[in-house]
């Protein structure tokens, strides 16, 4: 009994000590309280697995009241939001490849006339099927909902009373859907390229996030600062080795993606290499920034995880980007993974060119420069 009492007392002393240390580390304590709540609210409202209001381009070669009714019906399904009106096929193709729209609805010339003649013409709907989750339910809704609504508005109510048999008549027009890039809706084709970005984010951030705090914790920073070396020189010297590590990782993952998961390489591999380099550099810069903000290695790791979660959840890696509310999309635009996913999926699956990805290239570059700027500014040249 005495042994148990003694043991409990020692455990009690240990618990007490742990609590004191926990409360003393302000950053960790704040993280414990605020971050879970913040993330719950953020992700709870942002994530939507049956996405609606997906960006859609309409290539209208026929402008008529019928086509307007059809487009209104399409939007009324809530799955589609007509955001672009390209003037030709090349422009529509670019919108689809760059990921700005998920669907292109093409209304052929003379469409209304063909309907009047009872020729049952087709509306061509091209869908970006790289992410099956985003496109499948929308495409399923298209035929059924739009047809019913158009029929009711323009044919049933005007021409044919209920039960006249017209409902069973051949449809006045039909949708021809064309799932592009991943027609078989293989999930891996979407996930595996995404994993390349996700894995690189994790490893690159951790490497550099620890680099400055480690020097401070071990006391070597004082020696380093007392030497004639500039902060920028320290940063470049610390980041450069990991660019090579990242390039190696990327090559391995990409090789496995092609060999094990049959991920196609439709686009230009050289472009992908350059952009992967940019992505690696961006993540290393952000990790380095964390390193200059954190007071110790534990905090650096915590920051990395706090940052990693939105990257996974909001970037479009796990859930369709287009399904998120606008404010969440704006947050996601500040995350490098969002841009890189568009690049890697675009190049591998859709054959996107640098012209298709120019917005993402710019976005990633801006994020990198901001991170580097903060890192150099934050890096304390003195111990003040």
């Amino acid at each position, binding site marked *: 009994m005495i042994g148990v009492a003694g043991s409990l007392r020692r455990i009690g002393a240990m618990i007490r000590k742990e609590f004191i240390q926990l409360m003393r580390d302000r950053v960790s304590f704040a993280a414990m309280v605020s971050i879970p709540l913040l993330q719950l609210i953020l992700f709870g409202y942002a994530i939507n697995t049956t996405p609606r209001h997906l960006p859609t381009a309409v290539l209208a070669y026929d402008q008529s009241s019928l086509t307007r009714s059809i487009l209104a019906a399409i939007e009324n399904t809530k799955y589609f939001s007509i955001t672009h009106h390209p003037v030709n096929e090349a422009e529509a193709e670019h919108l689809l490849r760059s990921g700005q729209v998920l669907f292109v609805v093409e209304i052929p010339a003379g469409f209304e006339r063909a309907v009047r003649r009872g020729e049952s013409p087709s509306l061509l709907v091209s869908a970006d099927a790289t992410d099956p989750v985003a496109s499948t339910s929308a495409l399923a809704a298209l035929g059924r909902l739009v047809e019913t609504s158009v029929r009711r508005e323009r044919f049933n109510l005007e021409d044919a009373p209920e039960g006249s048999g017209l409902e069973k008549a051949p449809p006045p027009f039909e949708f021809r859907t064309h799932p592009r890039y991943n027609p078989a809706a293989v999930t891996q084709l979407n996930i595996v390229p995404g994993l390349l970005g996700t894995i690189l984010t994790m490893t690159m951030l951790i490497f550099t996030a620890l680099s400055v705090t480690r020097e401070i914790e*071990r*006391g*070597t*920073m*004082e*020696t380093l*600062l*007392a*030497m*004639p*070396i*500039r902060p920028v020189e320290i940063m470049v010297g610390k980041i450069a080795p990991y660019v090579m590590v990242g390039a190696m990782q990327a090559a391995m993952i990409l090789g496995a993606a092609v060999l094990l998961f049959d991920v196609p390489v439709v686009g230009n591999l050289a472009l992908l290499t350059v952009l992967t380099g940019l992505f690696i550099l961006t993540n290393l810069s952000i990790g380095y920034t964390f390193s200059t903000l954190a007071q110790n290695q534990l905090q650096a790791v915590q920051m990395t995880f706090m940052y990693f979660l939105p990257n996974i959840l909001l970037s479009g890696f796990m859930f369709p980007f287009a399904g998120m509310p606008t404010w969440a999309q704006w947050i996601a635009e500040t995350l490098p993974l969002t841009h890189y996913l568009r690049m890697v999926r675009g190049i591998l699956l859709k054959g996107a060119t640098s012209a298709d990805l120019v917005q993402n290239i710019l976005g990633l570059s801006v994020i990198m420069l901001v991170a580097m700027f903060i890192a150099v500014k934050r890096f304390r040249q*003195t*111990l*003040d």
Partner: protein
Amino acid sequence: MSGREVDGGDLAAQDSALATGPDYAIDVQGLSKSFGTNQVVHNLSMRVRRGQIYGFLGPNGSGKTTTIRMLCGLLTPDEGHGTCLGMDILTQGRAIRRHVGYMTQKFSLYADLSVRENLEFIARIYGVPDAEAAAAEAIVALGLEGRERQLAGDLSGGWKQRLALGACILPKPQLLLLDEPTAGVDPKARREFWAQIHDLAAEGVTVLVSTHYMDEAERCHEIAYIAYGELLAQGTVDEVVAGSALHMWRVTGPDPAALARELMEVPGIELVAPFGTSVHVGGRDRAALERAVASFAAREELVWRPDSPSLEDVFIDLINRSRDNFR
């Protein structure tokens, strides 16, 4: 100063140019530094002549490390100005660093790099012309042959200290700032360390060394005593002792601890320090001290002898008085 980095051939010429610069390696006035509301260094001025060994003494937390960090540009003083090796400490920090070797209180080489890798790294950062040769030379000078592949973190305390000093002097600095370099080092290693410091001084290197050890203070050409961020005394050991105007008696008797407690209460006695079987007693008012001593004449078990103040007596007196002033 970037010439040193670019052109190794100019090294000697530059160094001699530096050596013929101003007479003072360190010349600073009115340095102050606060962290939050805590003023760590207050209006500190000091001058250290070239080629001197300058001892920097003071209790823990007195501002020694902060002062050293301000001298090598690791901290920016709130107030004050001055020069290090003739260069402005406020604006020419980087140039100063190139010619200053700073040895931190805590071992701060890379524990996970080998002895040789550490030395080569430092040589390359400072732009020493042939880094590998310089490191090899330093390893021989340190007596670390055969251990150059050992990780620096695995060395014993004494060897770590030697390596840290070796790393400090590898880029041939004009000024060494050593922050408690001999803390936790055994007496033999300390002796060797001081021999090396004197050799360096003989070659013209200026050395500022902070320490807690009185015997080390006496090995310095000049000393400065700092407490609560203020410089309290400065000069040669003899000057500092003479300047204290302290008069001392040594009293021997049974139970010196009880005697010391008793003596502390006696008016005229300002300083009481038990010292083995005897007690050092001191005061600055000679007459008052002698009256105090005379009041013990009836106690036959006590033996009183006049004594001269030691450096330690002087420092304890200084710190007692400065505490009265500042706290």
